[in-house]
C-alpha cells in the first residue's frame, strides 16, 4: 500500500514539476505580456495543484492535508482573479497585444473608461 502511494506521489510530483517548468518556460519564450499570461496559467493551475496533491498523498489523513487543501483552494480561487486583474490593468492603460488582428481591437474596448 505504501509503495503504491509513493509511486503515485512520484508521478504527481514529476507531472507537477513538468507543468511548472513548461509554464515558466512559456513565460520566457512567448512574445508579449498577454501570451505570457497563458503560460503563467499553466503553472498556477495544473502544476501547483498536482504538486499539492502529491504532498497530500504523502501527508496522509492529518491536519497537514487539510492545510494543504486550504492552500490549493486558495490558489485555485485567487490565481484567476490576479490574472484577470493584471490583464485588465494592462488593457486599461492601452497595452497593445502582440499579433492580434486590428479588427479584433474594436474601439469599444478602449472607450470603456
Amino acid at each position, binding site marked *: 500500500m505504501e509503495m503504491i502511494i509513493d509511486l503515485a506521489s512520484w508521478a504527481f510530483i514529476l507531472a507537477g514539476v513538468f507543468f511548472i517548468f513548461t509554464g515558466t518556460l512559456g513565460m520566457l519564450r512567448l*512574445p508579449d505580456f*498577454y501570451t505570457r499570461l*497563458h503560460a503563467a*496559467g499553466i503553472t498556477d493551475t495544473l502544476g501547483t495543484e498536482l504538486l499539492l496533491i502529491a504532498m497530500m498523498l504523502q501527508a496522509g489523513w492529518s491536519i497537514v492535508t487539510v*492545510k494543504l487543501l486550504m492552500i490549493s483552494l486558495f490558489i485555485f480561487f485567487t490565481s484567476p482573479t490576479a490574472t484577470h486583474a493584471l*490583464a485588465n490593468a494592462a488593457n486599461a492603460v492601452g497595452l497593445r497585444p502582440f499579433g*492580434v488582428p486590428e479588427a*479584433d481591437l474594436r474601439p*469599444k474596448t478602449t472607450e*470603456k473608461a
Partner: protein
Amino acid sequence: MRHILGLGASLAAFWMLLSGSISLDNKLVLGFGIASVVLTLFLAIRMDRLDGFPVHIRLSPKLIQYWIWLAKEIGKANIDVAKIVLSPNMKISPRMVRVKASQQTDVGIATFANSITLTPGTVSVDIDDDEILVHAITEDMATGLIESDMDERVTAMELKYR
C-alpha cells in the same frame, strides 16, 4: 442570520485548524479564539452593509458537478498550451474576442470570467454588462471557447443557488 451563523461556524473551524488546539481546558487560548471569531464576524457584517451585496455560496451537487467538468477542461487546455510552449516554432495566433455572458448576478458573471481565466489559453480581460472581452492565445482556443457550453453551464448552476 443563517449566513452569519454559517460564517461564524466556518471561522471557528478555521481557527481550530490553524491553532491546532481543540481542548477546552485552556480558557485563555479559547477566549482568544472566540474573540477573533467575533471580531471577524463584526467586520464581515459591517462590510456587507457597506458593500451592499453579501455573497451566499452553498455547496450544491450542481456546483461540484461543474467543478469536475471544469477540472477536465482545465486539464485539456493545459496540455494544449503546454504543447504550444514546448514546440520549437511556437504556433500562436492571438485573438481578442467578445463572449456573451448570459448570467444574471454578479457572482455568476464572476464565476464565468474566472472559469475562462482558469482554463489556460483564454484570459478574460474586460467585462462589460453582458459581454466578456477575452484574449485567446490561438484562433482555435477563441473559437473553442465561443462554441463551448461553459456559459450555459454557469448559468444553469447560478439559478440553482441564487
